[in-house]
């Protein structure tokens, strides 16, 4: 978003201040999401059983704003400002709380997809590192250089 207008002598532009105020209020609203109801969902009641889902939520947000002035009164001058921002929220189920006449229990939730991806990445990385140790080109180079250690 951006806007451009002629600078009138004696009049100050408040576009930059408004942008900063907007950023601060948006950040305050964003930081207010640090509360318990972001981690726990609405309880679900089915018969005698109560289920409360829980999740881990990670949110990040950033903004940027800039403004500039140019020219002089004789040439008309000019001012411009712009800004932008973005954010992302990640959530992952952690556990389910089940309250029944038999008692209360916490059932953990394993994110199989995430674990599988992490295991594949870790496995590939470790395999690559071990293969570097067994590198035949490196061994041949060492032999040619007389390095038999």
């Amino acid at each position, binding site marked *: 978003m951006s806007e451009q207008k002629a600078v009138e002598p004696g009049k100050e532009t408040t576009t930059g201040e408004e942008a900063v105020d907007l950023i601060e209020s948006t950040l305050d609203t964003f*930081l207010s999401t640090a509360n318990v109801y972001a981690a726990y969902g609405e309880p679900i009641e089915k018969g005698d059983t109560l289920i409360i889902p829980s999740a881990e939520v*990670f949110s990040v947000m950033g903004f940027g704003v800039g403004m500039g002035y140019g020219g002089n009164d004789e040439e008309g001058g000019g001012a411009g400002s712009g800004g932008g921002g973005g954010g992302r929220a990640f959530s992952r189920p952690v556990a389910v709380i089940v309250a029944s006449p038999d008692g209360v229990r916490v059932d953990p939730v394993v994110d199989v997809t995430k674990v599988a991806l992490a295991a594949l990445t870790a496995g590939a990385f470790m395999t690559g590192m071990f293969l570097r140790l067994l590198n035949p080109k490196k061994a041949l180079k060492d032999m040619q250089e007389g390095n038999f250690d």
Partner: protein
Amino acid sequence: MPDFVRIETHSTHPINHQGRRLVAFAQSVSLQIPGLPFGLVWNRPVSLLVVDSDGQEQIFPIKDPTRLIILGLACGILFTWLITRKINRS
């Protein structure tokens, strides 16, 4: 702890069910460096407090097996890197 990092523990309103009272706790870590238009918030469930009709209290910790497994894999990567580096140097 620096002022721009806030670690707080919050609790839900008590939930009454079948004569029991349940209170869930969550921990939040928020980061907002003054002067920088950047913010970060991390919420995670921590524990559950159950108060029975006879007043007996029980605390159930909420464990995150996914994060434990991923941390274990990360430690494995780090350990492998250190070992291979040591072998390469020797």
